[in-house]
């Protein structure tokens, strides 16, 4: 098994969901965004309520308390597990089995921020994230939650004009996907590198043909043709 951050959750249908837990670096940046937002809101509270003397101060303190503890809970429960900071970095909170976070778990993981915060600015939280495989802080461990990366959207590509070529032999899933990725990524590769990659796959192209090698610049366009065929173009 090769090393990866992913872990799998098997659904009853036999489909395995691949989940990608988010580590401390991106989480700290997301947290920074959130704390800046909270600071901004608090500043508004305190300046607006400063006109009401001590009563205003009291109300502002209560509001800032509620904001500190229930801001994440609100966003986790009603905004698909994403506080504004997490949304900015494409993260979301969910249960370990990728189901939506439950209210109890959300409250627990946020109340336990108090523990993670110890002894100074999330010291325990960082240590816990560095030690656990899914980068969970203590609150996450207790609540059974995990912060995940939202899956990456591949850039959509323009329709390829290359003529579709049927593959000389049937390809397995892995190979089909490799060809499709080749097609998707070719705009980001240099022409030389693309050809170099395509030359690696020549045994496929030479199959059932009498050629011994393929001319330069030919391999990549023929592979693109096969990729097109796999993507559904049949002409």
């Amino acid at each position, binding site marked *: 098994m090769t090393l*990866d951050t992913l872990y799998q959750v098997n659904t009853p249908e036999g489909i395995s969901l691949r989940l990608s837990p988010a580590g401390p670096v991106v989480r700290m940046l997301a947290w920074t965004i959130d704390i800046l937002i909270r600071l901004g809101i608090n500043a508004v509270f305190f300046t607006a309520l400063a006109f009401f003397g001590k009563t205003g101060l009291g109300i502002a303190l209560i509001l800032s308390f509620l904001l500190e503890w229930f801001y994440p809970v609100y966003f986790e429960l009603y905004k698909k597990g994403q506080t504004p900071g997490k949304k900015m970095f494409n993260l979301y909170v969910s249960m370990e089995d990728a189901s939506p976070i439950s209210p109890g778990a959300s409250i627990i993981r946020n109340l336990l921020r108090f523990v993670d915060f110890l002894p100074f600015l999330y010291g325990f939280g960082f240590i816990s994230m*560095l030690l656990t495989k899914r980068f969970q802080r203590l609150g996450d461990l207790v609540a059974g939650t995990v912060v995940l990366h939202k899956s990456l959207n591949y850039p959509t590509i323009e329709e390829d004009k290359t003529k579709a070529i049927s593959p000389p032999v049937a390809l397995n899933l892995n190979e089909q996907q490799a060809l499709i990725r080749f097609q998707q990524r070719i705009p980001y590769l240099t022409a030389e590198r693309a050809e170099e990659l395509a030359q690696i796959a020549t045994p496929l192209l030479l199959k059932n043909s009498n050629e011994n090698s393929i001319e330069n610049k030919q391999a990549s366009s023929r592979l693109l043709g096969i990729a097109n065929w796999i993507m559904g173009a049949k002409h």
Partner: protein
Amino acid sequence: MNLNEITANIRLRNPWEAIDLGFSMVQKWWLSIYLPLALLTFGIASVLYLIFPKGNVWIASLIFWWLKPLYDRVILHILSHKLFNDELSTWQVLKALPSLIWNTGLFQSLTFRRFSLSRGFNLPIWQLEQLRGSRRSERQSVLHQIAHTYAAWLTIVMVNIEIVIVISLFGLFMLFLPEKTANDFFVGMFSNKVEYERWIDLLNYLFYVFAVTLIHPFYIGASFALYINRRTQLEAWDIELDFKKLALRFETLARNLIPALLCVFTLSLLSTSSPVAADEATNLDTTSETQVTEFLSDERLPAESSKQVIKETMLTKELNDKQTVTYWVRKDTAKKPKNDPDKFSFADFFEPFAKIMGFIIEFALWILVAIVLFLLFYFRDSWLHLFNIERKAKKESYQAPEVMFGMDVRPDSLPDDIISESRKLWDNKQHRESLSLLYRGALIRLINIEHVQLKDSFTEGDVLKHSQKKISEAKHLFLDNLTNNWKMIAYAHRHPTNEAMEQLFNTWVSDFAIENVLSDLESNTPKKDGSKDE
């Protein structure tokens, strides 16, 4: 560099995920990394401490911090070998130190490149690609195109995490100290007034060395993973790996298969995923690469054994739980089976008797019900009061109290002319006695003339409340006023003004001490005064 030997899953990741992969690397290979690294860092730290002891530990800390690029190189050396499946012993790592010092641009890193924000990300170009001069800077600018932002943020965040860990360690240490000692430390640290002990310096130094040793591999690991990801993006390493596997498969196929089997393959062209080809593929694919891209569960079972699993599952308690629930059901009398007429039945024989007995018992029961109803009516007095219905009989049994709040409220205890007597007392400055007499007179009037049923357990407030419905509005207004004045003098020793008192006397005559018939007429035009004395 042999891509086939790579131990991490190569796929195109988003840069943050790549950073996380770096963390996973350190988590997985922690022993191979931390053992040589700790030897190095703690070795250097001890030497520095010996050179700059007492009072100059901060210089040792500063130099230790400045030497970070050296540790970077050692960590990257270990990680890069690990990534391509090359196990290094601690001794091998330490032996590689001289070449790491001389051949990796360490001098530049320690001088004018020390503060580069992307130094972790750039390191592989120096150390692994061994590029120098203009080629290096071109290469670096290509790699930086997308990754530089992430590399810089990574450095900033990791520096912060390092600081947090140092302060956390110190904070944790402080938490376990008695409060007084902890305070002294703080005072000692931030002022020069108290001479604090040297070992605190040493402790802080150790915490710092420990934090650097702990955090730095994660920084270099993440930077390296970011670099690998950027190269994967540029050079499509993932596709190269898959194409190599594909090529290997077809070369073996070409060598091993007899030409007759080729017909099967040409036939299978019709469908993209022929089962024959797929089987061949899995047979040849001895490595577990399918799980890299197959988005299906690893734990799929063959059909026969999954059938077995399904059977077992269907037999589990959860799916076969049976419960016995008992409840009453009305018997369906209509469907009662008729008895066989020929057969002698004990029940049939006694049926007429049973009917007669039933009639008699039913009749007797009805009589009983009638008797009970009659008795209930006859002795209604003894039980009806249980339902708390107010009845005349109760009113008749009412006994007027003789003493209320220590006052004699018998009618004959009063003087004939209450007002003049009270007025005389008031003029004599006997305010209390005067008001007491007036209030007592009011109470007696309520009891005897207005027929308000006062009890000796009532308070002044109760008297007011109970009399509200019984007397006219004007009278109640007066009573309210009087009660207030009385309470003020009785409990607060504050007597009303002469005018208020005069008004009370007047209202007594005009509103209160009059016959009911008259008062009923007057109650339609309530008096305004008498209520605002307080």
